[in-house]
């Protein structure tokens, strides 16, 4: 009975240590997306070339929505992954880029510098689509299946491995 008081030490220390430890390996800025499992937001926006593109154009096909900006460092890192995926899969996978708080001229300069991705990019002048998708900062990429349901989301830059993993959720294998 006297020794019961020693339990105080693990009772205090262990939960605290466990909690603080659990934070490692996790990005504290990552916000869980409530869109997963639900219908992807609908939109009609203008591309960098001045044409109109809408989410209805992707009906019946799986597609990827990538939010990016020319001022975003990690976007440079994931650019080759996106371009490579597009090159590999071609029309098997629809992809669209959405400009996040950026100017058309800067976006064009980015694409000229780092290479064209092979798919269209739309501007989001009011930030409405970013709000609808609950984007907290670029890069964020959403994976929508053929039924129009959001199946997965990548917070932060994509790598080859992450791209394959996320694509699997919408039934696309590279």
């Amino acid at each position, binding site marked *: 009975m006297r020794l019961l008081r020693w339990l105080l030490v693990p009772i205090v220390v262990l939960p605290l240590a466990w909690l603080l430890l659990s934070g490692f390996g996790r990005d504290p800025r990552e*916000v869980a997306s409530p869109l997963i499992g639900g219908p992807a937001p609908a939109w009609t926006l203008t591309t960098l070339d001045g044409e109109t593109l809408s989410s209805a154009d992707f009906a019946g096909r799986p597609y990827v929505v990538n939010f990016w900006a020319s001022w975003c460092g990690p976007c440079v890192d994931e650019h080759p992954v996106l371009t490579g995926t597009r090159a590999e899969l071609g029309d098997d996978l629809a992809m669209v880029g959405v400009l996040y708080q950026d100017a058309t001229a800067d976006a064009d300069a980015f694409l000229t510098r780092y290479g064209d991705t092979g798919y269209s990019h739309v501007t989001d002048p009011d930030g409405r689509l970013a709000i609808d998708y609950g984007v907290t900062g670029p890069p964020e990429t959403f994976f929508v299946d053929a039924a129009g349901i959001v199946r997965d989301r990548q917070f932060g830059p994509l790598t080859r491995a992450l791209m394959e993993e996320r694509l699997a959720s919408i039934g696309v294998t590279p």
Partner: protein
Amino acid sequence: MRAAGLGGLIALIAIGVVLAVSEADGATPAERTGALAAELRCPDCQGLSVADSQTTAARAIRRQIDEMVASGASDDEVRAHFTARYGDWILLAPSSPLVWLIPFAAVLAGLLALAAWLVRHPARPGVAPAPLTDEQRRRLHEEAEALDA
């Protein structure tokens, strides 16, 4: 004097409660937008509210709140609109009532525990000098005054 003081205090507290309650309802659309904006978190800031932040995203959200309030949405509908998109994270104050209760429960528990500890056993006798009785106090006053003369 004391009764007046106590009465005044109660009156003030009553006025305070009335003020607090009257602040809550009957707000103008601008006030509602401001209040809602203060509840929502700016998506690309560190903990600032949409009301305090001047980033593009914050301004876009404020515009949307404005539109929704103008078109007759209720406060709950506005909140639901944004939590459907960002999750509960967009609310600066957690929605779960438990989160609000826990700290107050902890304080209450602490106060009760202290009260119980104070009341349970009488103090160790003879540790401190016994405090002056009123009679002794009066005598001390008188003698101190007398020394002034």
